[in-house]
């Protein structure tokens, strides 16, 4: 137990990170390309729906937000702990309630003004204003920041009700360089919550200037006007936006006032190319420096003497699974669910459908973060045992054949599910069918519990802490991602205990129990962990690739250290 008077939590120095840094080429920083060639072209896929970081929910949005704004802390390259970012250090009180962040005194906004603690308070309140309905606000009101648990009951049409709520939050700025957050109760994972891209400082004067003056807290359009133009998107991150060409690209140039000094890359262009094949072509013609290889071209890349050398495969902190509706017999019977879980040959699925990129998984927590544990193989492929389980449950093929596998109408989901349903039909002697429908309709149906089996669905870590994962299967999350709504006796209490636990070993032990419960009761059938198969030009150096990188943006947590070598 870390029960000193105060726990100095941030210990890792930047040196540790530099050791992890891996240039993809053989060149070192001694033969850098001239500064006008220090340009990185990457594909972000889709334009952010908002340039206000507090409003961003998808990885393609965070992929821009993370460069323009900087959070208090950020995950280290190995994903084992947090490291300093906008805060040079932080203290946690011995009761685990008060987090004091020491801001860098030399931190400046991209327009040169100093970043003050009051900007952080304003940014957090902007995020927690219920009228603005930020999509990723849950980790901040759900059992963390003091006073924020009333988030859902605020009357959003009343400015005074909102003001009362916001002023009651445990956020304060005792001086310009100290930002204090008080929690409702201890939450060992809170250091990770502040690494989320939505938790940024925001400049009140800029927001109000763009809105044409101050506005009541219940206003929903004026507070977003500043985020509409590159001129008013003033951030504290290593880069600033110099140009937005809507749905085409966004150009980032160094923030000259960034505390961490000037980066090598003088320009980063994030393109919004939705078609992976087009991006693949643009990589080959030199217009893009890094891409995700489209699945259909994986074998081409492997066979190509040049491209195969530029390929990089690395794990993502994302697990996929198949969901059974445990509210609908016979899937309320764990034996039936386990029979389905044990009759998917995951290795064959990976090999035949996914070109061997993804990794089969029989457990919940993915490789690359604490909690990854392969010891429990209860869901292992075993058709004979699966059939026996069905017999034990007394369920016949005729009963099961009337159910369908509900599938979203994307190519990837269709091909995966064709294989999976075929596995069930072959290994369990069934004749089940796929039901492929429009994605939004699928969500509407699973929300109502109107399905038998649905998948693949999954989760990608917001931050590499297990708390971010296990609350998915809370009873109260039945209509969020725990669609099957499996009855897990004692699970909620066990996980909540682990979430608040300050002793990391005890936490891990509790989470391990919870994971075993998920696996053994076949709450879902875990099938694979997502891997990223990328091509990166050999002249891109200094990349620190982590499992938390945003899709198609390799190394984007540490682009400040990346460079282009002479080529």
């Amino acid at each position, binding site marked *: 137990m870390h029960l000193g008077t105060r726990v100095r939590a941030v210990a890792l120095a930047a040196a540790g990170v530099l050791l992890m840094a891996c240039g993809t080429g053989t060149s070192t920083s001694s033969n850098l390309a001239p500064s006008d060639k220090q340009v990185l072209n990457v594909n972000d896929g889709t*334009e952010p*729906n*908002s340039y*206000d970081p507090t*409003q961003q*929910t998808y990885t393609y949005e965070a992929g821009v937000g993370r460069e323009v704004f900087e959070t208090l802390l950020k995950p280290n390259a190995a994903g084992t702990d947090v490291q300093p970012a906008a805060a040079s250090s932080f203290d946690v009180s011995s009761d685990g309630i008060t987090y004091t962040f020491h801001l860098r005194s030399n931190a400046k906004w991209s327009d040169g003004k100093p970043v003050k603690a009051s900007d952080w308070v304003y940014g957090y309140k902007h995020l927690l204003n*219920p*009228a*603005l*309905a*930020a*999509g990723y*606000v*849950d980790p901040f009101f*759900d059992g963390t920041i003091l006073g924020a648990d009333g*988030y*859902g009951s605020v009357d*959003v*049409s009343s400015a005074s009700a909102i003001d009362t709520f916001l002023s009651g939050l445990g956020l304060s700025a005792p001086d310009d360089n100290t930002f204090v957050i008080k929690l409702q109760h201890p939450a060992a994972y809170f250091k990770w919550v502040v690494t989320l891209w939505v938790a940024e400082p925001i400049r009140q004067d800029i927001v109000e200037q763009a809105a044409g003056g101050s506005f009541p807290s219940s206003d*929903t*359009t004026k507070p*977003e*006007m500043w*985020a*509409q133009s590159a001129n008013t998107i003033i951030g504290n991150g290593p880069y600033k936006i110099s140009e937005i*060409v*809507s*749905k*085409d*690209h966004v150009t980032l140039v160094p923030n000259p006032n960034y505390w961490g000094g000037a980066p090598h890359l003088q320009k980063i262009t994030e*393109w*919004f*190319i*939705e*078609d992976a*094949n*087009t991006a693949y*072509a*643009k990589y*080959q*013609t*030199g*217009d893009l420096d890094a891409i995700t290889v489209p699945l259909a071209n994986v074998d081409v890349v492997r066979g190509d003497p040049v491209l195969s050398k530029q390929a990089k495969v690395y794990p993502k902190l994302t697990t996929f699974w198949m969901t059974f509706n445990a509210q609908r017999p016979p899937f309320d019977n764990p034996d039936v669910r386990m029979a389905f879980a044990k009759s998917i040959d995951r290795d064959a699925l990976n090999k035949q459908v996914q070109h061997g990129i993804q990794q089969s998984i029989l457990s919940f927590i993915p490789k690359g973060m604490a909690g990854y544990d392969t010891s429990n193989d209860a869901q292992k492929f075993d058709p004979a045992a699966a059939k026996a389980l069905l017999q034990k449950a007394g369920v016949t093929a005729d009963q099961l054949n009337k159910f369908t596998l509900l599938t*979203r109408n994307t190519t990837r989901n269709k091909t995966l599910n064709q294989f999976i349903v075929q596995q069930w039909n072959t290994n369990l002697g069934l004749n089940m069918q796929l039901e492929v429908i*429009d*994605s*939004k*309709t699928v*969500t*509407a*149906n699973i*929300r109502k519990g109107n399905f038998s089996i649905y998948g693949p*669905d*999954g*989760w*990608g870590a917001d931050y590499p802490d297990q708390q971010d994962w296990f609350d*998915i299967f809370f009873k109260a999350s039945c*209509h*969020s*991602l725990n669609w099957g709504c499996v009855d897990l006796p004692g699970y909620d209490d066990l996980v909540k205990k682990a979430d608040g636990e300050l002793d990391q070993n005890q936490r891990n032990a509790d989470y391990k129990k919870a994971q075993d419960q998920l696996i053994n009761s076949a709450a879902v059938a875990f099938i694979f962990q997502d891997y990223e198969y990328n091509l990166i030009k050999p002249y891109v150096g200094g990349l620190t690739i982590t499992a938390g990188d945003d899709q198609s943006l390799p190394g984007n947590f540490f682009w400040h250290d990346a460079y282009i070598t002479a080529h």
Partner: protein
Amino acid sequence: MAVIAGRPNRGALLPRRLAAVTDSRVGSLAVYVIRRVLWMIPIVFFVIVITFVLMHSAQGSPWDKAGGRQLSQVVVDNLNKKYGLDKPVFFQFLLYIWNVLHFDFGLSYQYQGKSVVQLIAEGWPYTATIGTLAFALIVPLGIGLGVLAALRQNTRVDYATMGFATFAASFPNFVIGSLMIVLFSVLMYHWTQGAFFLPAGGWGVDSHLIMPAITLALLPIAYTARLTRASTLETLRQDYIRTAWAKGLTERLVVIRHVLKNSLIPVVTTLGPTFAFLITGSVIVETVFSIPGIGRAFVVAVTSRDYPMILGTTVLFSVVIAVANLVVDILYVFIDPRVRLT
């Protein structure tokens, strides 16, 4: 979005007593145009009604995500309040109509803080540029090839032209687009060591336009060529054409002065809606070539249930199609002297 090709129902729309002041041809044309423009108001209204009903009867909410954790209920409730979706649907409809009357098409749900008008203003120039360029290819090539094939009926020229037309019409444009990218971007880049190749997508008013414009134009060229050929063949068999030949006129004169004027009427009829289609965008061409136009924006709006954006783009498309049909009707007057707009 259905396009009804063909001539609109004329007459019977104008009160008899007004007909007196519309004696002159120009006067009658002006009244006709005004009347047709006014007719667009109820048309757009019904387009809105139908779209509104269809849109709200499609399952799923704008806030649903395609997999992963869904937004928590309190956030969804607040979003509904923010965008007025907590009110009864009929009230939402009346509010929308009221706002449209003030030229306010609302804010997009997907792109926060951006108005529908702004999104359309951003995307339409791209789409319209490529569409217009494609149209500039379609008219001379489609008509030219069709006339050529008809004049040289059952010769190698005819077979080659119609063979090309069948080929172009039977390949879906995502196949053509992808093949062109492989050929003119990737392989060309390899063969010329990067010295010459066409960009594989993205926007730029230069070589970026070549492949998308051709991809977009191929099918309409094929269609127009076949139609022109059929219609020209029919005209060539008319008595007055035989007379023209008999008078000893040159082929050029016969074709331009006598054949084309008559054979082009059905072609012009289809070119109007074709043009409307082209400048409102093709989701496939815009996706394959990564063009930030409104064809893609419309489809994204539908799949993400961005109601104001769906309505805004649908209204735009209906107006563009109505205008294109009106222009076609006016063109008839100049092509065929027998046509009277009343």
